[in-house]
C-alpha cells in the first residue's frame, strides 16, 4: 500500500496552515521579490558574483566508489558541483510568525533535497550545499513562510523569539540586523551580523489579519488557543499512550 502523508492532525486554522506548508503539492503564495544578489548578501557566505568555493571536485571529475546508494540517489546541483555546505538560520517570533522551528524543519524535509536541518526553541537552521541553499533561501524569504517583522535571518545571537515586540512591531534583535525604515524592513547587516555595504529590502510587514490567518503556532492571546483544537490534543495523548504502552511491554498482551 502506498504511503500517503497526512501532515498532522487538527481541525483549527493553525493545523490547516501547518499541513499546507508541509505539503509539497501545495504551492505557497509568493508575497515579495528579493533578488538573487540580495539573498546572497543576507546569507553572507560569499560575495555576490564570486565563484562558489568548493569542498571537493565536481562529482563528474572524481572517481566515485561503486556504491548502490549513489546509483539510487540523484545528487543535487550543489553536490554535483562540489559546493561547500553552508546554512541559513531563522528566528521566528512566537507572536504569530508564519512558520516556527519544527514546522520549518518538517516543511523543508518535505520540500527540499539534500538538507540537514536543526531545530531549537529560538532558531532553526538548515544546512546544505551552497547553490542549493541560495535557491531554498530565496523561496523561504519570498513566500508566505516569511514575514519581515516577525521572522529574521540570524546566524548567531538569536535572542528574541519569545520576547515582546518592539513598539514598531519588530521582533527584538540585539544586533538590529534589520530595521523598519519608511515602512519597509531593511537588512543593514547579514545574518551573522556583519554590516552590509548597502541595505537589503525584504518588504513591508504584513498586517495583523494576514499574520493571524497564516499562523502555524497556537497562541491563546494573539491567535488560536491550543485547547480549542481538541483533535490535536487527543492525537498527542494517543501517541504518548501508545509509546508508553509499548515501551512498558513491547508486545501485545
Amino acid at each position, binding site marked *: 500500500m502506498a504511503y500517503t502523508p497526512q501532515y498532522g492532525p487538527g481541525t483549527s486554522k493553525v493545523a490547516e496552515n501547518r499541513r499546507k506548508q508541509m505539503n509539497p503539492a501545495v504551492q505557497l503564495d509568493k508575497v515579495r521579490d528579493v533578488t538573487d544578489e540580495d539573498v546572497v548578501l543576507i546569507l553572507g557566505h560569499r560575495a555576490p558574483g564570486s565563484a562558489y568555493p568548493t569542498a571537493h571536485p565536481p562529482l563528474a571529475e572524481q572517481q566515485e566508489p561503486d556504491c548502490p546508494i549513489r546509483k539510487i540517489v540523484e545528487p543535487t546541483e550543489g553536490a554535483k558541483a562540489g559546493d561547500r555546505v553552508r546554512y541559513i538560520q531563522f528566528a521566528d517570533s512566537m507572536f504569530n510568525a508564519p512558520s516556527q522551528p519544527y514546522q520549518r524543519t518538517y516543511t523543508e524535509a518535505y520540500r527540499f533535497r539534500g538538507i540537514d536541518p536543526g531545530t531549537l526553541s529560538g532558531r532553526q537552521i538548515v544546512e546544505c550545499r551552497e547553490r542549493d541553499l541560495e535557491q531554498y533561501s530565496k523561496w523561504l524569504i519570498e513566500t508566505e513562510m516569511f514575514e519581515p517583522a516577525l521572522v529574521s535571518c540570524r546566524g548567531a545571537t538569536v535572542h528574541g523569539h519569545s520576547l515582546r515586540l518592539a513598539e514598531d512591531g519588530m521582533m527584538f534583535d540585539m544586533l538590529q540586523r534589520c530595521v523598519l525604515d519608511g515602512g519597509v524592513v531593511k537588512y543593514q547587516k547579514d545574518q551573522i551580523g556583519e554590516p552590509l555595504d548597502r541595505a537589503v529590502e525584504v518588504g513591508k510587514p504584513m498586517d495583523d489579519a494576514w499574520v493571524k490567518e497564516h499562523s502555524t503556532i497556537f497562541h*491563546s492571546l494573539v491567535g488560536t488557543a491550543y485547547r480549542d483544537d481538541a483533535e490535536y490534543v487527543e492525537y498527542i495523548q494517543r501517541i504518548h499512550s501508545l509509546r508508553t504502552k509499548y515501551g512498558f511491554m513491547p508486545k501485545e498482551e
Partner: protein
Amino acid sequence: MGKIERSQKLFLNALKEKFQGEDPESVKTTFYNFDGVRQSPRKREFMEAAKKVEMKRGMAMYDPEHCHLGGLPMGQRQLMTYQVSQTDVFVEGDDLHFVNNSAMQQFWDDIRRTVIVGMDLAHATLQKRLGKEVTPETINEYLHILNHAMPGAAVVQEHMVETHPGIVDDCYVKVFTGDDEMAADIEPQFLIDIDKLFPADQAEVLKAQVGKSMYQAIHIPTIVSRTCDGGTTSRWSAMQIGMSFIAAYRMCAGEAAVADLSFAAKHAGVVQMATHLPARRARGPNEPGGIKFGLFSDIIQANRKYPNDPARASLEVVGAGVMLFDQIWLGSYMSGGVGFTQYATAAYTDNILDEYTYYGMDYLKDKYSFDFTHPDPAQCIKPTQEIVNDLATEVNLNAMEQYEQFPTLMEDHFGGSQRAGVMAAACGLTCSIGTGNSNAGLNGWYLSMLMHKEGWSRLGFFGYDLQDQCGSANSLSMEPDRGLMGEFRGPNYPNYAMNVGHQGEYAAIVGGAHYGRGDAFCFNPLVAITFADPSLTFDFAEPRREFAKGAIREFMPAGERSLIIPAR
C-alpha cells in the same frame, strides 16, 4: 481536562517588580535604550572589580563593552532581576551563579563531605572478637575522641601534625538510633534526636526503620572534600574512625582486628551519598552524578518542615536539584561551561513553577477530590494512563496559556528549555503527588514535552529531541537498560545524562510521590535523618531561602581560609 478558576497568580508580584511601570499583559515594549550592561549594578561592580584586578596583575580581564560581540554589549533589552521563589528576595542573575553564591557551594559541600557509617559491625568486632565491653559510656567517650580526630587531630601517635580547628570547625560526627533507651544515654551534643526534629508520625516510621542499630552521621571538613573529591569522604572518615576506636578501646594499633573496623568503615558499613560512576565519567563515589533521585529527595528536608504541603516540599527539591544537577554537575563538571545557570534558575525564581504546580494541586482537588494539604496513601489516585493524561494535559495547557496571556512571563522565561522544564515539572509533580507513584509522574512529564512541542512547534535545545521525545517509552518500563523505578534513577541514568533542565525536576517528581502519600522518607531513612541535623552549615529544609541568602551575601559558609592567609 477542563480549565479551572484560579485567580491567584503567584508570579505577578515578580513580574511587576521586574518590569516596573509596564503592563505585564502588554505585547509591546521598548528596547535598545537601557545603557547596555551598565543598567545592572552587579555588572558595574564586576567592571569596577576587574579594573582593580587589571591594575594589580597588569593583564586584561572582564571587559564586556569591548569583548561582547565586538563592542555590542548585552543589555540591549532589560537585564532582569529575579525573585527567589517563596522568598521576598530579589537578586541579580549573576548572584545565582554558583561561583558567586557561597550558599550554593556549601549546599554541595555539605552533601559531598557526608557519609553515614553503621556502628553495629564495629561493636560486634569489639565485643565478639576482642572481648571488649561496649556501653553507652564507652560510646560517648569514643564520640568525644572521634570529634577530636575527625577534623584532623592525632589520637595515638607522638609528634603529629594536625589541622587548625578554626579552619575545620564544620567537621563533626553525631549518631542516631531508633532505640529510645540507647538514645537517652547518648550525650545530647552527639545525638541527632529524631523525636525532636521530625513530626511525630514521621519520627515513628524512621525509628522503626533504624531499629536498635546505631549510625554515625559524619561530615568531614569542607576544605578537605574541596581540595580532594567526594571519594575522599569515606576514606578520610574511615581513617579517623579507626584511630578513634584504637584510642577509645585501647586497642593495639597494628592488630588484625583493626582491619575489620576499617573494612566496616570503608565498605561494609558505609552509606555513600552517591554511587561510583562508570570509568568514562571518571568520578568516584559522593559526586553529583551518582546521587539517586530518591536519595536526593531524602537529603532535602522540606517534607519534614512542610509535611502538609507536598507541593512546597517538592518545589524545594526542584530548586536544590536544578542547582546541583544543572548548574554544578552538568554545567561545570560535565560540560565545563559557565552558562547553565539560567536553565536552572527558571525553576526556582519568580514563583512561576510554583504557580503552575499549585494550579495542578487545585485541579487535583477540583476534579479528583484529592486534598494535597492532607497527604495520605488512602486518598492517592490510581495511576491509570487516562488519569495521567488528563492531569498532564490540563496542567500543561494552563502553563502554556499563562505564558501566552502574560507576555512578560514569556519574556522572563525567554528560552524554550526553561519553559519546557518548568511546564513538564508542574505536570510531573501533579501526577506524582496525586498518585503517589514516581513513574506516573515521569510519564506526565513526557506528555507535557510532546504537547509543548506540538503546540508551539518548538521545545528546548537539540538534546530535547532525544530525551523528551523517546521518554514516554521508558517512563513506565522496568526492564534493565530500558527503565527503572524513579527512586533508583539518577543523573547518570541512560537518556538523563545529557540535558539540563531535567534532573532536579525528576528528583522532585520522585520525592513528590512520597510527599503526596505522607511518607516519612523516599528512599533511605538514614539519609533523611542525617540531613535533619541542625548543626549542618546549610539548612536543607529551606534550600531556596539559603540560596537567596547566598545571593545577597548573608550566608556564612564553612571552609574559609582567612585564618591562614594574609588579611585583606
